[in-house]
């Protein structure tokens, strides 16, 4: 009996300690840690000079064709995001960078990430380590609805934003999450690529970011309670379906109202 009580007490104390233990809010980056190898830096430099320097300049300070890579949010997270999603390299600098297939393999991307950080002393954040298993789905949903849903849609399918300036209307494309990995979610949230705002750890902390990435994973294949998702476009598609079905039933009803019993219209000879 005493043994059982001692074991139970010890377990309770251990549990309480782990409960009160301050979880380390900062985690080291995942794929890019410590000093890169000399070979990786050489490969990165070679790829940079070949594919990137035309727009971003030999020194990474940007040209009229492309932005400065040595200031702002530029760092391993943003570089990795732009390369891994195939947004860079871009064909024409006037276009909005769109996701596609990257021409580089994973090692080449790591080499470029390491080279840019090393050569230009970038100030932006490192690649965040996302652990979706540790994330809380409900907390992630709250963070999503508060910070992401306005632009990327409640269902995560993305959308479009039009902006007018002095009578001229322009538009940008807002991507959905169908092909976005949890690490890319973290990178985009921390750096705000393109027209997207950046979300620092004060706005979305590390645990919330885990939850957010987990919720976005969930959104790729959600539990459609209504049974019929209609492409998850929301009110427009749902309204159209409602109109077609609802008005169809009404037409049948109106036909019943307009038909006299026993006197269905006949062709007169």
């Amino acid at each position, binding site marked *: 009996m005493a043994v059982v009580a001692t074991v139970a007490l010890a377990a309770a104390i251990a549990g309480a300690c782990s409960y009160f233990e301050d979880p380390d809010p900062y985690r080291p980056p995942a794929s890019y840690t410590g000093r890169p190898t000399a070979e990786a830096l050489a490969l990165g430099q070679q790829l940079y000079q070949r594919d990137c320097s035309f727009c971003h300049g030999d020194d990474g300070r940007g040209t009229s064709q492309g932005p400065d890579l040595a200031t*702002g*949010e530029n760092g391993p997270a943003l570089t990795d995001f732009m390369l891994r999603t195939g947004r860079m390299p871009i064909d024409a600098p006037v276009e909005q960078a769109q996701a596609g297939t990257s021409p580089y393999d994973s090692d080449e991307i790591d080499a470029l990430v390491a080279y840019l950080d090393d050569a230009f002393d970038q100030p932006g954040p490192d690649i965040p380590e996302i652990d979706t298993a540790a994330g809380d789905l409900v907390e992630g949903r*709250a963070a999503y609805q*508060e*910070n992401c*849903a*306005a*632009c990327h849609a409640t269902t995560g399918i993305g959308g479009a*934003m*039009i*902006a*007018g*300036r*002095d009578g001229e*209307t322009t538009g*940008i494309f807002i991507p959905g999450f169908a092909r976005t990995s949890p690490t890319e979610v973290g990178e985009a949230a921390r750096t*705000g690529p*393109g*027209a*997207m*705002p*950046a*979300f*620092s*750890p*004060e*706005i979305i902390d590390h645990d919330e970011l885990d939850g957010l990435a987990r919720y976005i994973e969930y959104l790729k294949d959600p539990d459609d309670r209504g049974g019929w998702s209609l492409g998850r476009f929301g009110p427009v598609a749902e309204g159209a379906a409602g109109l077609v079905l609802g008005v169809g039933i009404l037409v049948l009803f109106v036909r*019943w*109202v307009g038909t*006299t*019993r*026993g*006197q269905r219209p006949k062709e007169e000879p």
Partner: protein
Amino acid sequence: MNRGRGLILAAFGASMAASIGVTVVYALGGQPQIEGVLLGVALGGIAVGLVLFGHRVLPGGHFVQARDVVPPTTQRPEVAASFEEGAEPIERRRLIATAFAGSVALLGAAAVFPIRSLGTRPGRQLDHTSWRRGLRAVTNAGRPLRVDGLDPDSVVTVFPEGHEGSADSQTLLIRLPGGITPPGPRDWTVNGVVAFSKICTHAGCPVGLYQTDTQELFCPCHQSTFSVPEGARPTFGPATRPLPQLPIGLDDDGFIIALSDYTEPVGPGFWNRP
């Protein structure tokens, strides 16, 4: 014909009973689903009653009238008799007419009661929000914010501390990038951080979309666009007034606080504010 009459009376009777039911349920505190079903029965009963009346009581069949024949005066009594015959079902069915009038009147009476649900008069409530001098700007989770915690080009929705989730107080903190002069009086901003009401001045939707490359806020409902460096001036869409700016400063611990409430009413216009 009698069976038709019974069905019509039953339909109008069901409508009357449902109208009384709506009033009773409303008076007992209300339950939307039950009220909805009863309202559906009240309206549907009138519709079904009218349709059945048309089908079963009014004379049916095809009536052909030759166009250019003017009946001689001697035929007048015949025509009059035919007209009387057509009007007869309506005249003779007093009970059905009374039931119809009763169901319409009861439905009208039931619709009067929910006026009470419009609530009390708003008074001066629309002119101010929960922001007060010295209240910290916190996230929906209650976290206060420092300027250092906001990267340039970041945006976060904040509320006055203690009023998290307050709909009329929702405010956007935006940190503008270095090269852009913050709008508004200089002592209303801190290190490039500006605060604007998140409620669209057109129809009250949350202006939740922010484009960092043009520093524009965009309303998802009707595409109103506000240029933040120009004091959230509307540049596109139906909104006519800029988003109100909240004066912000720092408290002794370095957290962002409000310096006062908004100096003008937030959100869309109302009766005495066009």
